[in-house]
């Protein structure tokens, strides 16, 4: 119970940093999506679900690798590079082809048609994928939580710790719903899509640099270990 409270407080305390880290991907994307508060809330929920999946997936892989993964700078650089490339691709597609990434929006606007021919392939909702990629882009508070979770000495315990931490940070994402009323300005979706295009270029650059240079990065950094232990102490 004590560790759960600790995880929740850690999440609540570092939530603004998490929001700032995910904001560039989330906020323009919400701005380009449907106007109604309920639809925006649903998308935010899907995004957070995807983010949690990214967190937990990383945690499980890290656990399986004996917690060496978060401290292996080389692998981290590669994973972040690939995650950034995924993020860039998704943002780029959302910016250029707004209805392709969100089938829900298209179906809400178009009349129901009987489908002739092969059924469409299932595509996971873009919000989940976006959340998943941002979840893989580990922000400093998450790394701190990861190191603290490792001290629980059991995988289920660590996952519960992570989930509680995630719930703490998720509270800070509620103000993102304020994007929804902005949609009454006709130009907001266009601005949001243009912003996504700019951000896609930025993430693509980060992704290319990460994917191209990961072998040049030293495997372990003593400074990082000190930094993480410092953060844990601070938290």
């Amino acid at each position, binding site marked *: 119970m004590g560790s759960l409270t600790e995880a929740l407080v850690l999440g609540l305390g570092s939530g603004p940093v998490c929001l700032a880290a995910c904001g*560039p991907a989330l906020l323009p994307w919400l701005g380009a999506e449907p106007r109604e508060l309920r639809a925006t809330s649903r998308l935010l929920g899907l995004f957070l679900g995807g983010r949690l999946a990214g967190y937990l997936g990383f945690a499980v892989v890290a656990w399986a690798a004996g917690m060496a993964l978060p401290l292996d700078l080389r692998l981290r650089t590669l994973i972040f590079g690939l995650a950034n490339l995924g993020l860039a691709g998704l943002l780029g597609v959302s910016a250029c082809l707004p209805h392709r990434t969100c089938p829900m929006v298209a179906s809400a606007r178009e009349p129901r048609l009987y489908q002739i021919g092969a059924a469409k392939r299932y595509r996971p909702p873009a919000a989940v994928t976006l959340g998943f990629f941002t979840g893989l882009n580990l922000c400093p508070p998450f790394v701190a939580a990861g190191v603290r979770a490792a001290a629980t000495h059991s995988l289920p315990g660590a996952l519960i710790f992570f989930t509680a931490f995630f719930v703490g940070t998720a509270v800070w994402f509620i103000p993102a719903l304020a994007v929804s009323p902005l949609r009454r300005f006709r130009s907001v979706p*266009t*601005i949001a899509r*243009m*912003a996504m*295009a700019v*951000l896609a270029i*930025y993430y693509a650059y980060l992704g290319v640099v990460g994917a191209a240079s990961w072998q040049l990065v030293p495997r372990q950094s003593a400074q990082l270990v000190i930094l993480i232990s410092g953060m844990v102490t601070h938290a």
Partner: protein
Amino acid sequence: MPDQARSIAPQSVRRIGRSLLLTVPMALFTLLLFTPALREPERPAKLAALITWAFMMMLFFQMMRTRQTYRWRRIFFVALGFLFPVGFIWDLIALRGSMSIPVERMLSGDTPFCFMVIPMTLIPAALTRTIIFPGSILPTPSNPHSIAIMAALWILATVILGKAWCSYGCFFGGLDEGFSSIPKKARLRKINPKWRLAPWAILVAIVLLAAATYEPIYCKWLCPFKAVTEFSEVRSTQTAIQFGIFNALFLGLVVVLPYLTKRRTQCAFFCPFGAFQSIFNWTSVFDIRINKEKCATGCVLCQNHCPTMAIDPSSIAGGKMLSTCMRCGACVDVCRKNAAVWHIKGTTVGIATERARLLYLYAAWVFASMFGGAIIANSLQKLIGLIV
């Protein structure tokens, strides 16, 4: 014929007299601003201040005499845009021998602060009480362009003038205005109006990325004016890419596109600070309106002449400019029906328009003389020093 000549003469004499009377208060006030420079022992400083003061007053007098704003303001603004880099680069070379700034100097807070950073600092400052810029709060001998001075000047000008900052205060805008003034006709005329939204998109992107990375992203990656001011020393692939981006954006947005379109393309389609400044058009009491009773011909001269595409058919129909209007006065000067008019909020449109223009110009020109005039004088001093 002699009767006609007699009637014209007093009219022009009266106009000159009126213009002189209106210029005198401005001349006296700005003389006070230039007094410290005029008392400098060095001759180039004294001469530069005198020339700048005379230049500013000549332009103001012409604004009064011709009742035209845009033409004379443009002369000042282009002079500011082209002279600012001269003085700035001169100071940089004198201080550190290069236009590039090494990381060590950045870390010691020697980077000159520029108003472009203001929107990017807001979220990090609110979250952590930290200004994410490697400058100094108060002026130091190695960095006189401090954060506090620039922020104070910006707040003062913004509250009163709104987005007119982009026509009277920005020391970069004069460059693309200068290049856009060169051709007689635009070679690229069809511009998709959606591009007007691009500065907002860049503003959103840089503000969010600045909050995520705690870095002034625009200065680091996107500022076209780094090409003519100061940039990070090229020591790595990343800084080389940044240097390439600055130069490509400068050439494209500040030189080539303004020349082809006769618009201020950097200001209209790229500058995130301009978008941010648009918000403050709400705080300013001055604006430009279209008197719908007089605007019946649908000539759209104002729309065609607006350097930032801040007028479209819907804004003409509504009698108001778009939020991106920089109050440069091009539309008012070009309107043959006197339908585009200066206006003070809360008053009737089309009544006492010249009085509204005068009040606006007094405020704008005092600021232009104080801020832009000081920059012009500083650069002139360096150039005069080469001769005298």
